[in-house]
């Protein structure tokens, strides 16, 4: 069966840790890091990558435009 799989890349150094993407993800893919980046912000990352559908909800709301989204059809 064909399924949509997605993945996001967060530009970690530019992420400001606002948590808005985490909140927006419908499938709870994202979480905030324990570590901080160079600016002292905790940043967003895919905690549950396999749940990502590439729906772009996170990237649409990310105020700092640091999320790139990829999507592909896979046959499982």
């Amino acid at each position, binding site marked *: 069966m064909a399924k949509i799989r997605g993945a996001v890349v967060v530009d970690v150094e530019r992420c*400001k840790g*606002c948590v808005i993407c985490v909140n927006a993800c419908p499938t709870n893919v994202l979480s905030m890091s324990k570590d901080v980046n160079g600016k002292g912000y905790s940043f967003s990352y895919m905690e549950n990558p396999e749940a990502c559908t590439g729906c772009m909800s996170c990237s649409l709301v990310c105020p700092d435009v640091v999320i790139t989204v990829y999507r592909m059809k896979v046959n499982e």
Partner: protein
Amino acid sequence: MSISIQDIIKEENKVFSKTKLLTDKVFSYCPGCGHGVAHRIIMEVIEEMGIVNQTIGVAPVGCSVLAYDFMDIDMQQAAHGRAPAVATGISRVFPDKYVFTYQGDGDLAAIGTAETIHACSRGENIIIFFINNGIYGMTGGQMAPTTLEGMKTSTSPHGRDLHQMGFPIKMTEIVAQLDGVQFATRQAVHTPSAVRKTKKAVKKAFENVKNKKGVSFIEIVSNCNSGWKLAPVKANEWMEEFMFPVYPIGDIKG
């Protein structure tokens, strides 16, 4: 068959990335501030329409004063509140270009009230983006004309008292009444669907300019989490709960 993330993250699978019309500079905005999303959408539309070489933006005085550092288009910085007059000057001498202002509520609805009303009443062929966060973000969170009743700001520290400080003002409803305004809408950028709708409105506004239809006025209700002293996600919730009833989302004219 399990597929690795690396397989997905390939150029041909890219469905969302930063528009080229945003520079490499890190936004000067606070984490979670809506200004960034608003910037992005506008630049995306300009990119999609292929009109960068015909577009001139006007930055206000407010947190977005540095918008010209982030938007990779020709831009002017206007005196506080005067962006619509500046845009008028541009649009009149370049009648075939796309001219927009990007203004906060202090800029547009306080000191710039006359310029806003008259650019709208004259029907200048421009777009006015109005970021309403109910506060003066840049200068440290003072009360704006759009501050809600009872809301605490650094100049209404005991909450906005309507009797003492006046009533919140609904600029979009006001300008919608003016004959020069073709399109007036109130949107938001805090959720994916809100962003999608706002982008549609932005596109429509640029189309209006193309067709010389007069003013398109797009209010974006947005958070100023710093000024509101709330975490970004909380701020957006607070916005839905308290700002939206006073500033309801939706098209008002056109």
